[in-house]
């Protein structure tokens, strides 16, 4: 196919501008060439800083955020390093500069150390961890530094890192998928930390070169739908109310905040800077000696090791011969908007991006798989369920189809995972949330279930047949109870059904009580606070709040007592059917047991 469309791109000859004057001051000899413009050293720096500030000010969220907190994602690399410096200079001007009002109440620096995924055990010891190096940079600023490690994604509270064993990433067979997963985990950590710390703005250091690479590579990975969200200068996709982790946190701390107002907006103020500009600026300002070189998965690898790496090579190579490549791609990307085929309310459980539903169906239609008789009429095709996610809950396993919870690109990545591996809890939560929505489960169990651990597995071998065991959902935002969807056996006896219905009724009872109780609590607490605020003009202290707690409990005494009595009665009532069920289960379980015992003896006898 030859080029159908005009205009043909003609190889642009970089002008031989030796001896030219700076186009800005028109006096000094030009020493820097950015695309077709020549600058002297001081004009270049001026223009560069100006570009950053213009970009920052253009974004309306800067103006609308007088007393908000911001977080800077600092990898320690040239671009984010430069971003941190520029942002500081902007927010805290030197005395002789024109004073601007401080833009953010507080700035925090967050770094995610990925070394666990890149080095193996021995190398890790050799001070390959980037955490300390980046922290030493951050120390030069008067900002709070939050150091995270990639393995923290596996621990819901981000405290210890003992859970991580690299088995997930080791199970990924291609670097492309591995890179993708790493990136999603990193984004998730950053987002969650921003929420946890109450930051409403997250600054990313993506420069224009990086963004144009992303535009091409994301397209190749099948992320064209959500691409605009991942590359725009300002992205406010992440609404807090959609995210369980955040809700959970709020509920735990009994802090009820207007959730709509708390969303993290991602800002990319470096989006118009070429990596060349950043490199030169860092060199001139001495930042270059203060950069942490973070090795990536493809460092020192061949060009074709991953899509990302190949794209980088392609774009950077083109840029050399056709200096406007990067800016053209970036401009193209800026004009794109998320497709209206995607549902912005739904987000993929792994990458947190919105996606188009029913993609599996589309895939099946365009690719005929082999699990059907070859000469069957070409109507509804079924393919082997390639991806399902199974959940290990309390040693019993249950499975669910991942088809409707992952986006197309993540499904493609899952194909590269050949073993059963554990996924971080946030993935599990997102999937559970979806199942809960889909099954409309409003049943709940006792609050202690909050602390139960669950694991998620991705596998290519499972069939997503019916559920094998009970589903436990994530805690309800108001009642704080985890809903349960009970497993219905195919040949359930009337007693079994009665037992299940009974439990469902009680769950429902619990849920209703705690929902109304907690709602009352929230409303009354808010009222009390408001009254106090009117009186004193200040936020109530914890001592004052404790008075309210006592009042509330006193008032609720009768209600609570009635509930307790009911709950005890129900518990006693449950003893008999519960005991019966246990005996039934025991009977089902017995024959198997005896069979194994026989075989055991036989084995012994034969040996």
């Amino acid at each position, binding site marked *: *196919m*030859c*080029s*159908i*469309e*005009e*205009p*043909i*791109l*003609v*190889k642009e000859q970089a002008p031989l501008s030796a001896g030219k004057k700076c186009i800005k001051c028109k006096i000094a000899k030009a020493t820097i060439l950015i695309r077709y413009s020549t600058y002297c050293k001081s004009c270049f720096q001026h223009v560069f800083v100006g570009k950053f500030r213009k970009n920052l000010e253009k974004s309306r969220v800067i103006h609308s955020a007088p007393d908000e907190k911001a977080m800077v994602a600092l990898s320690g690399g040239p671009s984010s390093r430069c971003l941190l410096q520029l942002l500081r200079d902007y927010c805290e001007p030197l005395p002789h500069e024109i004073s601007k009002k401080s833009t953010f109440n507080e700035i925090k620096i967050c770094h995610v150390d990925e070394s666990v995924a890149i080095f193996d055990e021995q190398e890790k010891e050799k001070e390959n961890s980037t955490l300390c190096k980046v922290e030493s940079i951050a120390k030069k600023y008067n900002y709070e530094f939050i150091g995270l490690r990639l393995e923290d994604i596996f621990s819901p509270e981000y405290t210890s890192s003992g859970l991580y064993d690299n088995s997930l990433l080791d199970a990924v067979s*291609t670097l*492309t998928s591995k890179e993708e997963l790493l990136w999603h985990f990193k984004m998730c950590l950053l987002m969650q930390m921003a929420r946890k710390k109450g930051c409403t703005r997250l600054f990313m250091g993506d420069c224009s070169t990086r963004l144009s690479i992303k*535009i*091409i590579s994301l*397209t*190749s*990975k*099948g992320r*064209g*739908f959500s*691409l*605009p969200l991942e590359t725009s200068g300002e992205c406010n996709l992440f609404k807090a109310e959609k995210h369980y982790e955040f809700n959970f946190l709020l509920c735990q701390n009994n802090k009820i905040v207007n959730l709509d107002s708390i969303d993290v907006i991602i800002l990319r103020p470096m989006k118009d800077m070429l990596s060349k500009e950043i490199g030169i600026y860092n060199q001139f300002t001495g930042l270059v000696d203060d950069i942490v070189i973070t090795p990536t998965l493809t460092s020192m690898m061949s*060009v*074709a090791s*991953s*899509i990302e790496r*190949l*794209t980088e090579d*392609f774009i950077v*190579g*083109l840029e050399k011969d*056709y200096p406007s*490549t990067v800016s*053209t*791609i970036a*401009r*193209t*990307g800026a*004009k*794109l*908007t*998320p*497709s*209206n*085929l995607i549902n912005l309310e739904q987000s993929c459980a792994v990458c947190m991006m919105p996606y188009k539903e029913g993609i599996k169906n589309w895939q099946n*239609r*365009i*690719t*005929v*798989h*082999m699990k059907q008789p*070859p*000469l069957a009429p*070409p109507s509804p*095709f079924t393919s082997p369920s390639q991806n399902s996610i199974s959940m290990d809950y309390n040693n019993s396993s249950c499975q669910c189809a991942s088809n409707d919870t992952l986006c197309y690109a993540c499904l*493609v990545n899952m194909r590269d995972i050949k073993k059963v591996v554990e996924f971080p809890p946030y993935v599990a939560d997102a999937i559970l949330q979806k199942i809960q929505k889909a099954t409309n489960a409003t049943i709940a169990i006792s609050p202690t279930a909050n602390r139960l651990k669950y694991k998620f597995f991705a596998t290519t071998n499972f069939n997503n047949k019916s559920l094998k065991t009970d589903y436990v959902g994530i805690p309800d935002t108001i009642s704080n109870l985890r809903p349960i969807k009970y497993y219905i056996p195919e040949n359930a006896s009337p007693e079994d059904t009665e037992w299940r219905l009974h439990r469902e009724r009680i769950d429902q009872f619990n849920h209703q009580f705690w929902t109304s109780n907690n709602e009352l609590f929230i409303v009354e607490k808010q009222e009390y606070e408001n009254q106090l605020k009117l009186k004193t003009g200040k936020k109530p202290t914890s001592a004052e709040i404790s008075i309210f707690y006592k009042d509330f409990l006193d008032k609720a005494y009768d209600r609570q007592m009635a509930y307790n009595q009911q709950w005890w009665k129900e518990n006693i009532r449950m003893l008999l059917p519960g005991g019966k069920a246990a005996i039934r289960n025991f009977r089902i379980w017995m024959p198997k047991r005896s069979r194994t015992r026989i075989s055991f003896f036989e084995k012994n006898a034969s040996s």
Partner: protein
Amino acid sequence: MPRLCVVCKEERASVKRPKTGEQLCRNCFYHVFEIEVHCTITDNKLFKSGDRVAIAASGGKVLAHIMKTLNDRYNYGLDLFLLSVDEGITGYRDDSLETVKRNQQQYNLPLKIVSYGELYGWTMDEIVKEVGLKNNCTFCGVFRRQALDRGAVMLNTDHIVTGHNADDIAETVLMNILRGDIARLERCTEICTTGDGRIRRSKPFKYAYEKEIVMYAYFKKLDYFSTECVYSPNSYRGHARTFLKDLEAIRPSAIIGEAFQIKQEVKLPTQGVCSRCGYMSSNELCKACVLLEGLNRGLPRLGIGKTNRLRKIHGEMPENTATMLHFSQLQIDGENGKSESDEGKKRR
């Protein structure tokens, strides 16, 4: 032990499908491939019964073969025609035009060949002599697009199917991103585009890999022409193509296209009709007319660079310069589809 086909489990597998990595025997491969195209056609409701469809068949015979097979097997009820464009490039299309003619008898489908020489009064060889190698693809591309539409009108069809495959579309997507061509970026992945409201164009091979088409052609002993045009040493596109091949090597699914959406506020050019030839155009004159005017007046840069400025310098087109026939004046060929329009020649 020879590997068996994963479908029938009987025949020896002789194809490893690039799309899925599955190993199939020839017959099962044919079948799967055909069904996928069939699904693409039915899912997107490309045709309705009774449509007259022109198959743009200059590239190879796979499209014609598949269309004919599926039309017969699934009773689409289509009237099929073969439509070929002769760009007038010596040594490039000669062979394929010969086979098109041979296949006309084989498939018993009416054939129409439109040539640049007849339509525009210029063959590509002549154009290249005039404009050099640098911008000739612009001419060829613009002219071919119109030539196909004109051919379709002459055949009295309302639909053209082209052999664009997933690789082609991926390449176009990439080129449009690199070029910043927003309007086309949105349009180029559509499986069916409506030209000027009369002639629809669709791509039944949108989800088929080039490799599989080539394999299909090879096993079925169909002619497949992928000869590189002798005039297309376009290095930029070459880079893009190499990149895509590398991508495919890393992850084959990377080249299956998908849709983009443009921000609402970005203005897209409105489609109008060329005042000279009646072809759809966003300007007063369509690209083909501007290019043709440039050729005829010895100003081949017209339409490539700043058209308006050049026109200001050289003045408007003189009245009697040859242009191509107005769209509405195109004559519909007789039912036999053999008669060739000599209108272009006469004009010249």
